[in-house]
């Protein structure tokens, strides 16, 4: 990992704190632990792919990092500053956005309304909203075509695009993507994530990506961690995972 990081930074040693970091994170539901003493580090400008079977705790980790689920123990730091227990609104303002699992849209609202409400929710100033919307349309141009439609009438791929677009409206520095490809054809996956990878590389976004579709996800990731029963059991580079036939067979 560090070799790649060093290379990207022109060999300079990494001194600054990771952009997002959790140490000893423990949480669960009603006494049953889902995350147990988990450590995770997301560096500035990288795409970290998190893989693991259903029930490994990936979604719970995402929710805990974004303040949607309380941490029972451990610490979360954003650029070195503790943010454990912060709510999604303040984390959004601090530059994190989350694309939740499933269709992250409201079926009875139009796409325009979802965008408008999304920007209002995270406090985007009124005079910047039109510009932000156009910026998202420039990244995911198809959205502009169905912006007046009710989100409930969109296809799975379109809905996911709107969900990602909405997350981008706050111009986050960190994007938490929870299974964006679920229910989508592999071709759609590339249509969806290729523009995001492009944006990420252009603007140095940091992305934590949870995916079941491992092969496709590895193509756009800088690093991979494998999660099982609430802990990390393997970490490395995408090509190492691809070479590791035992792990690849598992996931």
């Amino acid at each position, binding site marked *: 990992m560090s070799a790649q990081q060093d290379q990207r930074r022109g060999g300079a040693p990494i001194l600054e704190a990771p952009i997002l970091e959790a140490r000893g994170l423990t949480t669960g539901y009603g006494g049953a632990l889902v995350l147990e003493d988990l450590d995770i580090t997301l560096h500035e400008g990288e795409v970290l792919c998190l893989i693991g079977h259903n029930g490994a705790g990936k979604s719970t980790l995402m929710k805990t990092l*974004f303040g949607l689920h309380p941490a029972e123990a451990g610490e979360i730091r954003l650029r070195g500053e503790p943010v454990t227990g912060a*709510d999604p*609104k303040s984390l959004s303002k601090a530059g994190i956005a989350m694309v939740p699992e499933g269709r992250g849209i*409201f079926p009875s*609202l139009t796409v325009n309304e979802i965008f408008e409400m999304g920007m209002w*929710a995270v406090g985007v100033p009124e005079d910047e909203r039109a510009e932000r919307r156009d910026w998202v349309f420039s990244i995911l141009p198809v959205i502009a075509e169905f912006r007046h439609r009710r989100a409930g009438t969109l296809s799975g791929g379109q809905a996911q695009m709107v969900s990602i677009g909405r997350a981008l409206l706050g111009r986050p520095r960190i994007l938490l993507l929870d299974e964006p490809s679920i229910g989508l054809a592999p071709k759609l996956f590339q249509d969806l994530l290729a523009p995001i990878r492009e944006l990420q590389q252009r603007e140095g976004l940091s992305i934590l990506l949870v995916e079941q579709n491992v092969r496709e996800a590895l193509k756009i990731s800088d690093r991979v961690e494998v999660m099982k029963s609430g802990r990390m059991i393997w970490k490395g580079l995408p090509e190492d995972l691809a070479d590791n036939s035992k792990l690849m067979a598992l996931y």
Partner: protein
Amino acid sequence: MLWLQLTFTGLQVGALYALTAAGFSLIFGATRVFHFAHGAAFVLAAYVFYWAETSGLGMVAGIVLAALAAMAFGVAMDRLVYAPIQRHEGSFFTVFVASFGIGIAVQNVLGMVFGRSFVTISTGLSRSVKLMDGVYVSPLAWIAVACAGLFFVALLLFLNRTHVGMALRALADSPELIRAYGLDPRRLSSIAFALGSLLVVPSAVITALGSGLNPTLGHHVMLISLAATIVGGIGSIGGALVAGFILGLAENLALVVFESQWTEAVTFAILFLVILLRPAGLFGRHATR
């Protein structure tokens, strides 16, 4: 001319039902709380207005106080009754029973304070004016219909044009996702309760000025609101409004054929027919959720 007279009376009654039902529908649609105490908000507002009027505070102060009382009651129910139950994974029925209980308690307290018999405020507004031979309409009827129209347009504009309105519609879709967007579902829920409860105020005031009040009126109002919400289609505020008018009209037009004690039976006949023939309601978008 009897049917024409009854149509006018039906429109007045329907307008009052429509607004109350729209309030219940707004609360139920956004929060999924079966707010049975909505009827209690209605009688509370009506008696606060009655008290203000009879104490000589004047009509405007009476309306303002009634509005504040209804809104405070709705928000208090949400914060102090429903929120604690929901925090402990309270089921739909636990919430319903709590609401039902508070509704009865409010009704009895009002009965103790103001007495259980009918009270009314006499104004010139409720005096019928001859429209044509055999048809008499009071100014209050026109006020009721105008209020229903005005409040409904204001509500639609609010829900479609403001951010809070959009968020309330979104809350109905998914409270979980609302949090992921960085909004607080609890605060939105309180706003839904405040607004939904505010919608009972015109009906409460007009009822106090017109046909008169007694503490048990809350049950009837609740029954009608519920029937209108189902007939109109759950989640459709416009549907509840239209259904409120339909029920008010039907109740009165039925008098051409039936005795007056059968009016509630007419409401339920309509409710059953709609459930049988169109389970999603007249304007329901989702049959199930």
